[in-house]
């Protein structure tokens, strides 16, 4: 993959890249389809229910049926909505969620690009989705949507900063923003992976990431019991599906990013296990992260807006700054 990227841009190469992009899009869509199924099953079992089991064997086609239903639904746009923003918002939310996946290295050889500012690229693009959510809240011309959109804006500002600063420790240790270099910098044994040396950064990252995903216990923008559905109250059909899609693609992205940054990417936990291909290890760690997110959703109540703010600014941000400080001293004393 790395050598391909160095080749000159010809029509053939362009076609190959495009084909890869399309293949990857389908992989991600397949993931989303079955992540939703998996989530419903997992939460169902945790809640003494069976989960989807009607459509297809074991309910495996349930999500496909849901997507089909959304596709054939009437596409309604409220008369008093800001029409163009209303149409634009789901697109703005979805596109960055897919675009951030470009920088994630899945194995040593399977990656789409090795940007030397990979982490910055991720952080910058994922912010754009929040603008989509605010737009959706504003353009719907609905009071519940507006409150959801505004909450989302506040949440973005409070949690994007600790999220980015919490990974600065990792960057300091490896001296690079490139995600591939960061994985290669983590050792062969599992205690050499970043999550142990960077335990504070890891915890802050996980909390901020869950908040970034707008999932329980930080699902304030769409808090069902207060704001009904928050920013997507007025959306129906496939525009609504785009918001759901973006949410699950971000689950994919954050789980991959956690694996890459803190859990050693494609490395095996012990050197004698390296006969199992790296992609298997990546998938295992990745699935664990995904499961963790679903598990949280089944057990946690929702936090309150003002508590969310004070927690972000007064706890997470100082913690991540301390982490940067301690790591910097460590790097200065022992690594240089």
């Amino acid at each position: 993959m790395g050598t391909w990227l160095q080749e000159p841009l010809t029509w053939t190469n362009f076609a190959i890249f495009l084909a890869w992009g399309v293949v990857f899009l389908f992989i991600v869509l397949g993931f989303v389809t079955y992540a939703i199924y998996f989530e419903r099953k997992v939460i169902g079992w945790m809640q003494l229910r069976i989960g989807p089991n009607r459509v297809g064997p074991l309910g495996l086609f349930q999500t496909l049926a849901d997507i089909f239903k959304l596709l054939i639904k009437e596409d309604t746009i409220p008369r008093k909505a800001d029409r163009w923003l209303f149409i634009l918002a789901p697109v703005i939310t979805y596109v960055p969620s897919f675009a951030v996946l470009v920088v994630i290295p899945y194995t040593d050889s399977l990656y789409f690009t090795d940007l030397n500012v990979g982490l910055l690229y991720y952080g910058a693009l994922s912010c754009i989705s929040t603008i989509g959510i605010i737009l959706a809240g504003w353009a719907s011309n609905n009071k519940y949507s507006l409150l959801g959109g505004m909450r989302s804006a506040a949440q973005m500002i409070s949690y994007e900063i600790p999220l980015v600063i919490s990974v600065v420790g990792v960057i300091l240790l490896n001296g690079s923003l490139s995600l591939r270099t960061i994985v290669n910098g983590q050792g062969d044994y599992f205690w050499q992976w970043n999550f142990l040396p960077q335990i504070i950064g890891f915890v802050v990252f996980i909390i901020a990431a869950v908040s970034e995903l707008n999932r329980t216990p930080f699902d304030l923008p769409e808090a069902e019991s207060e704001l009904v559905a928050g920013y997507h109250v007025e959306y129906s059909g496939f525009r609504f599906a785009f918001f759901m899609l973006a949410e699950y693609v971000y689950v994919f992205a954050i789980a991959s990013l956690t694996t890459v940054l803190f859990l050693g990417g494609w490395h095996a936990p012990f050197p004698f296990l390296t006969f199992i291909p790296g992609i298997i290890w990546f998938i295992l760690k990745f699935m664990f992260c995904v499961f963790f997110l679903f598990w949280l959703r089944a057990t946690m109540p929702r936090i309150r807006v003002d508590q969310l703010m004070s927690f972000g600014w007064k706890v997470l941000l100082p913690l991540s700054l301390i982490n940067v400080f301690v790591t910097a001293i460590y790097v200065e004393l022992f690594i240089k």
Partner: protein
Amino acid sequence: MIRTEELLLNVGPQHPSTHGVFRIVVKLDGEVIKEATPVMGYLHRGTEKLAENLNYTQIIPYTDRMDYVSAMTNNYVLVHAVEKMMQLEIPERAEFLRLIVMELQRVASHLVWWGTYLLDIGAMSPFLYAFRDREIIIDLFNELCGARLTYNYMRVGGVKWDAPEGWIDKVREFIPYMRKKMEEYDRLVSGNEIFLTRIKGVGTYDAQTAIDFGLSGANLRCTGVNWDIRKNEPYSLYDRFEFDVPLGTNGDCYDRYFIRMEELRQSLRILEQAIEQFPKDGEIMGKVPRVIRPPAGEIYARIESPRGEIGCYIVSKGKAEPYRLKFRRPSFVNLQILPKLLVGETMTNLITILGGVDIVVGEVDC
């Protein structure tokens, strides 16, 4: 120049967290509530007016539909008022059966409250756990009187059905099971940091305010007022059993939560003693005239329902139908403090406070 204006938001009648068709009109400044006006009456059925044309036995099913989460206590308040008026003797077995179903009902009702409250706060799973355990009680009731929600079980002078064989043993088995589940609930929810910060110090009022607004039940006891009609004016057989009345100190949602959790345990304690003393045999209906005609006069009877003091006021002219019948519904009275409590709170706390009051809209609107 930035201009801000208040946002007028209609919460309900179709809203996931208003527990039915209840509506609050709130004026919001950002997310802070400036003014809140509850609008009631979407579920009004005119029970009290209908009762004037029905004889007393026919009114009992209507009481089921008032507080449909706690139908047994509603049944009891009506028959209790009539019996008080006619000074009837109730056979002991019937009275024991009534007490057992009322306490089971209190457990079931608190479980519904617990589950839906956690749902309001954003946790999904407790709701399903609560309903799993409530289902056992519902099945017990189903076996006893053939209905799952609207039982129509009590009659003036006794109860309609005797306990089938083995029923009492099933109730006996349920008590240790429920105790174990209570521990599970506490482990999952009661110690959760997010949950505690959500309810601590929210919706606080003092004892005087609570009394001024006529609050009752856990809403009153959370301020430290020791008032439980089961203890203070014992009806049925409550004076025979030992149980504590849990009290709060701060008068916030936190106290209300833990009082209700403790009440669950105390109900199990009462049930345990009642099962021990349950008479082996006996009548389930007292000597009641075929047509119930209470003597002319007025009466007010009150009992402790899971939501507070439920009362029944009857004016009789000596006929088979009441001249006037009035229910004091605790949900309705407890709600009156809402406009005062909500001012200055956020949208999120609105749901926390409303859930903490524990209303059943069927009873609010009656």
